[in-house]
């Protein structure tokens, strides 16, 4: 479903990681741990196809637009588009149904459907990014620091999102939050 062989990434002469082999199937949840700068976010970006690998190969679903959902702390949203317009735009580009009302209810953002991106708080933006990541019900979901910026209700929402899909989805979570260990079936420590 998603994996890699001999994967490596370097910036300049510094290798973040090398010789990484992974193979994840539905039901797996890989927790990627490591200190700041260890390469957790970079690894998720490689799996998402946003950046290229320095060496090795990544196996990912044939159409990453509907095969991979990705939400990251450092990801932005369009300041002038409303929450609903984000979901409509993503759906049109991916070729899936927008499911705006259903998704916004699931992530607890129904009240902000017509808010423009620039008026969203950090937590609201995180919820919108979760909605966008799960929109196409992809078989692979990548969450980078999923709990960051969220209140207790938000973190509970993430738990529900993961539990609802875990039987048919492979998750990769990059985190420093020990609370998120409860989801993990595998762990990978970077920077060792």
């Amino acid at each position, binding site marked *: 479903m998603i994996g890699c062989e001999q994967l490596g990434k370097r910036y300049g002469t510094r290798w973040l990681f090398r010789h990484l082999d992974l193979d994840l199937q539905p039901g797996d949840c890989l927790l990627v741990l490591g200190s700041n700068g260890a390469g957790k976010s970079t690894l998720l970006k490689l799996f998402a196809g946003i950046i290229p690998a320095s060496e090795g190969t990544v196996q990912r679903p044939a159409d990453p637009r509907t095969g991979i959902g990705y939400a990251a702390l450092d990801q*932005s949203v*369009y*300041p002038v588009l409303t929450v609903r317009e984000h979901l409509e*735009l*993503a759906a049109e580009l991916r070729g899936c149904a927008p499911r705006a009302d259903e998704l916004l209810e699931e992530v607890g953002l129904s009240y902000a459907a017509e808010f423009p991106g620039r008026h969203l708080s950090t937590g609201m933006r995180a919820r919108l990014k979760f909605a966008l990541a799960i929109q196409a019900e992809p078989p692979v979901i990548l969450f980078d620091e999923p709990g960051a910026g969220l209140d207790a209700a938000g973190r509970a929402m993430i738990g529900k999102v993961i539990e609802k899909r875990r039987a048919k989805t492979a998750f990769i979570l990059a985190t420093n939050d020990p609370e998120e260990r409860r989801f993990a079936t595998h762990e990978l420590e970077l920077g060792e």
Partner: protein
Amino acid sequence: MSSNWGNEIRAVIRKELCTEMRNKSATFTAVMLSVTTVFTLAFAFYGRQLTGDGAAGMLWAALLFAGVGTLTRAFIAEEEQGTGDLLRMWARPHAVYWGKAIFAFGQMALTGFLVAALFLLLTGVGVATPLMLFVSLLGGAAALSGTVTLVSAMIARGSNRGTLAGVVALPLLLPLIALGVTAGRSAFEGLATSSGWAGTAGVWLYTLLVFATAPYQFAAIWREP
């Protein structure tokens, strides 16, 4: 709902249009740059008789100034606001390129014809073959938008983008400038023979070349960090 190129390209255009309608920055900047350039040229040549060569050169200088000054923002804005990764995740590279380039063409055509109308009005220069001027400007706007969209993607993640924009754009735009000025000279001076139309045909051939190759170059650089 199934994914197809038409839907994807339309979605990118609609996103660009929606963004532009709500903050109006690029269009406003393009119009201000163009109008300022045309007024400057008109003042500089006030009371003098412009030749076809001079008129064509000045008109293209104004078009380039507006085009390169504003259209290079296409991808820089995405990277600056951190939304480039959203497009990388959601859309295929060719759809992103075509959506951005078609929107840029609309913007460039609008600005180009406004600049041309203002230029003709203020300088009082006559156009012997208006159809040739119209066709060459239309082709020029298309080629400019296609080229500058690619340049914008090439420089968006670099540092010192202003310098980089000029350095990357210059070799790509020089052939277009030469062809555009040749076409403009023929239009102003009335060389509506087959050799007169050669410049206009050259502009359109350059446009075809841009749109046949730029989407592939764009796809190759779109995912590079």
